[in-house]
């Protein structure tokens, strides 16, 4: 099996692991961490295609991942601030109980 296929399989499995974590756990922090893992899987894809793609001379893949990491950092900061805000209102961070906005 060639390394590009292996990288893509790795990325797909990592994405599925993040998705399973985000869907199965009812804790807001763990859902956020699952989403971060999915973002990482997407970054692995970019790097795989940069490394083994048809035009490896371009730095596009690396630059894109760099910006994705910056956006992921911003997302984590805002997400965890939201978790703390939810905790202030309902005294726990279980998503199943965060139904105040439910119609």
């Amino acid at each position, binding site marked *: 099996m*060639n390394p*590009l296929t292996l990288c893509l399989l790795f990325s797909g499995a990592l994405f599925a692991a993040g998705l*399973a974590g985000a869907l199965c756990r*009812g804790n807001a922090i763990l859902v956020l961490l699952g989403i971060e893992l999915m973002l990482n899987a997407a970054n692995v894809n970019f790097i795989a295609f940069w490394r083994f793609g048809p035009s490896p001379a371009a*730095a596009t893949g690396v630059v894109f991942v760099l*910006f994705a990491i*910056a956006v992921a950092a911003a997302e984590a900061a*805002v997400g965890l601030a939201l978790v703390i*805000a939810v905790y*202030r209102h309902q005294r726990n961070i279980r998503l199943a109980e965060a139904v105040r906005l439910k119609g």
Partner: protein
Amino acid sequence: MTSVLVILAGFTLAAAAVAFALRPLVHCALCLVLAWAGVAAFYLWAGAEFLAFAQVLVYVGAISMVVLFAVLLTRRQADSDEAPGSGGAGRIAAGLAVAAVVAGVLGRAVLGANLAPSPVAARPLDVRRLGAELAGAYAPALLVAGALLTVALIGAVVIAATDAETRGEDRR
């Protein structure tokens, strides 16, 4: 070359799986730090050294600290973790099924595609060239990313800060 990738992938996936299977939140967060370190090792393997350093700094360093702070700040006696039964076996089964379907579809698509790595080896990307790219063609994007980070961090402070009206509510 490929065997190193297989070992890295196995380590990262095992860390991620263990992280979401464990019950105590702090252990989950620490296992995820291992998974992020595995991804950083993958970047090193692929020849993107600067990204590996960025991954270690941002994920293994910064985000893990923020996550641990959030875990400790929102902990309440024994119920810091999900209460048993709050999730429900049905939801867990449904989540696992969806993830398995996604993994199956992705795996089939990857295995079915005719992917041949390019015969040309990637030119190693040194930091000098990456800096030139960032300061040249990608300078507007870099400025926008800086503005985005500033706005996001100010927004995070505003959301997380207690204001006068809710402070009384907090003490109940």
